[in-house]
């Protein structure tokens, strides 16, 4: 397991702050790209994209999804999977897309700053 997965798997209380924002961004980006997904699919996609570095457990993922839902960035609805099982599918809302753009810009800027900072010091 990578360092990322360790931090992400930490108990609820300790992963507050930066990582909470990161999780929101990852989920919103995933839903914006792939359309409606259920919780497991979101986690699987993030794990796949990060080549297994980020493994979200249920205790982190679902409260996060619920929070995004409560804030109106995503909406959820019960539907059938291809195997005909009932699952809760999440999709991004218009507000969510706007939020994604804002956070993406912020993140990119921050990454740029960090990069040049680290580059200068190196």
């Amino acid at each position, binding site marked *: 397991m990578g360092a990322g997965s360790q931090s992400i798997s930490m108990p*609820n209380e300790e992963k507050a702050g930066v990582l909470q924002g990161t999780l929101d961004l990852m989920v919103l980006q995933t839903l914006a790209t792939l359309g409606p997904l*259920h*919780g*497991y699919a979101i*986690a*699987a996609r993030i794990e796949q994209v990060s080549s297994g570095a980020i*493994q979200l*457990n*249920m*205790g*982190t*993922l*679902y*409260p996060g999804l*619920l*929070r995004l*839902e*409560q*804030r*109106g*960035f995503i909406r959820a609805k019960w539907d059938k999977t291809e195997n005909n*099982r*009932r*699952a*809760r599918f999440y999709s991004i809302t218009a*507000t969510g897309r706007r*939020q994604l753009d804002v956070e993406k810009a912020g993140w990119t800027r921050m990454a740029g700053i960090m990069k040049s900072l680290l580059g200068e010091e190196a």
Partner: protein
Amino acid sequence: MKQKLREWGMRLWGTFKSRDAEIEEELRFHLDMAEQDALLQGDSHREVYLRQGGLTQAAESVRDQHAFPWLSDFFRDTRHSVRLLARSPLFAAAAIGSLALGIGANTAIYSLFYTIMLRQLPVAHPEQLVEFLFSGDPGQVRDDGYWGWDRYEYIRDHNHVLSALTGMSFDNLASLRVDGSDPQTVIEESVLGNYFEVLGLKPAIGRLTTRDDVPASGEAEAAVVSWSWWNSRFDRDPSILGKRIFVNDAPKTIVGVAPRGYFGPRVGSRTDVWIPYQRDTVRLLARIKPGVTRQLAQAEMRVLLQSLVEQKAARNHTKVKPIQLDVEPAGAGFARVREQYGKALMLLLGVVGFLLLLACINMASLLLARSAGRQRELAVRVGLGAGRGRLVRQMLTEAVMLSAAGTLVGMLLAYAGTGILVRIMASGRAFEHIDVEVHPDVQLLAVTAGIGMFTAFLFGLAPAMYAFRATPANALQQSARGGDTWLWRLFGKGLVAAQVALSIFLVTGTAVFLAHLSRLRNFELGFRSDHVLLLTLDPDHSSYKSKPLAAPYQRLLERLQSTPGVRSASITACTPLQGCGTGSRFLNAEGFVEQPEQRLRPAVYFVTPRYFETLGIPLLAGRDFSPRDAGHPRVVIISNAVARHYFPGQNPVGRNITVVHDTRPLPFGDDQPYEIIGVAADVKPFELRDAPFPTMYFDMFQVNHVFDQFQLRTSSDPTAIAETARRLVREVLPDMPVKRVTTLEAQVDSNIVPERLIATLSEFFGGLGAVLAGIGIYGLLAFSVARRTNEIGVRMALGATAGDVSRLVLRDTMGLLCAGLIAGSFLVMLGRPLAASLIQDLKPESAGPLALAAGAIAAVALLASYVPVRRASRLDPMSALRHE
């Protein structure tokens, strides 16, 4: 920010609407999918669970995000508390009941206090209003006197401290007649032209009177009526404007209705009609200039008034006394009622404060006993991993619930309780009626709820701490008295001892006040107020107007006297303590040379034969008037004080006096001597709190000065005779209206409203205190018997008899009682001078009330211990030993 708010809203909503099933289904699906993938990849179940975390924990995390955990905890605690309380309804009722009584009493008394002492008049800038009071002797109610017109004008024109000056005079018994209906007794307020303008009032309808309404002298024709009179008499019909009414038989026209909340400047007495006037005596109400202090205003007013008095004294060549004039704030209305009731109300606030303290202690000891009973349950929960903070919160929730319920019930009680207050207050003299309203006043509600919550936290925390004083292991073993440190036992007993002490204090106070009241009512009046009916006729509104009344009244008197149930009957102008008089005169006694400064000026009373018998005034020497006196040599009866002054050490009967007629001669006036035929005991004719007033009694038939108030001494309830008396009046004097029917007792009572208020309420509160102490003692003993069941079983198995066990438990009671008694006596000693300073003429020196209170509380304590003692003495040793 908006999103954050949305999240909170959703979570709040989620607190009330759980979706546990959905959450679980979603998580279950996740786990199934993870397991499928794991199987495909060849991982074991264990690895899946390790990676994903437990379903229960995850569900808990989601639930925490779904709702506000602390809020749902609170609701769960509340439900839990309600269930627990429902399981012990006696405990809940005792706790809620005692708190409700405490809070109800406080709310009611505070409402009264607020109404009388604090409520501002609904006028513009009430804080600027002042009134002028003349102080007499210290401790007396200050006189708010009427001013002569000249003085008023002088003050108005020469002061530099007042921005406005207005005035009024009151007629408390004005007759108001609307065309074609019977006259009604109302309170009329004659006001200066600028009155409404100075107060800044706006009419409900029509207009308020101004300077332009006032003629050069006397009364205006325009009248303003009160909103409540308009409402009750005209049902708020706007056509009232321009209506003709007769006030004291003078025609007036209604030009407007005063604003709804305004009833005149006197606390508790409601003006019904305002009529502008000028050039007559006037009571002043002023506005102080902004920036001028009351002290400054007072200094200038004193100087102005002093110079005025000195000018007059110089003209008349007399000496002047220095004038003591106080300028007092009048924003809450005239001070008279406030001064009259202020001390009584302070005392009552103190009493109900103690009562609330008692209720709080009661609640604390009940909660303590209860948490001791739940010790085992709590220990189990701590053992199972419940957080202590969480458990304390739960116990506090219970206390808060109890106090919330107590506060609520207390408010309801307060509404009911003010009914009693209103009845007591309404029995005052007509112009001193006080309407007490408990309205949902924000301030009052806040104070009350605050007290309730404070109680809950203070007394909910102690039991919670008690519950955790022992380690779970110890508590689980719960040996017979395990874990109770001496400190906690002392605390529990201390609470009950404090209750006993407080209730002894309250009951002693009650006994003192009741004794004081009964002395005021009966022993120091000089007459007997019971069983006397008073009946006032109104010859001015009959065909007997300005006709001789002596003969018809004598006929009526004879008829009344021969009525069954009437022992004797008489007539006079004013009965004692009615608040009226028929003047006073100097006299010259035969053979007595008087120093001018020691001259007596006795009150003059006109009575019929048998007056003394009817009022129960003892004749100390000589005889009563008799019908034979009419037309014979003039006779007089003097009071004992007059006899002592003019005939010290002699028998005045048979001696002569002459009445000195000054400027205003009485209608029987000339300088012929009156022969003293009797000496009557002293009475208090005017004010209950004054010393007996020297009095001369004349035979109204002999001096032919006839008045209209009949007194009947009855052998049973005087009000039962009232109808018969009215009928006899109709038979003898067909068109004579009866103006007023009351009893002498009611008349006396109307003079002692503050004292009755204190006595009646403290009677109630004292009883309440005793009940609360009883509940407390019962709770503690029942609890201690339950805890000692094991020990008692052992004792019985070793040969203790039922009597031994009863003594064991009773010893506890006795100990508590003694400790409480000592502390209570101490409190009483401390409280004595305080009570004496607040109530005039209170004589709290005797030990009787304290003994009475101690006896009463001891009886209550023994009664309260009866059930626990019985339970202890009837324990079956075998089952008691098995009791764990």
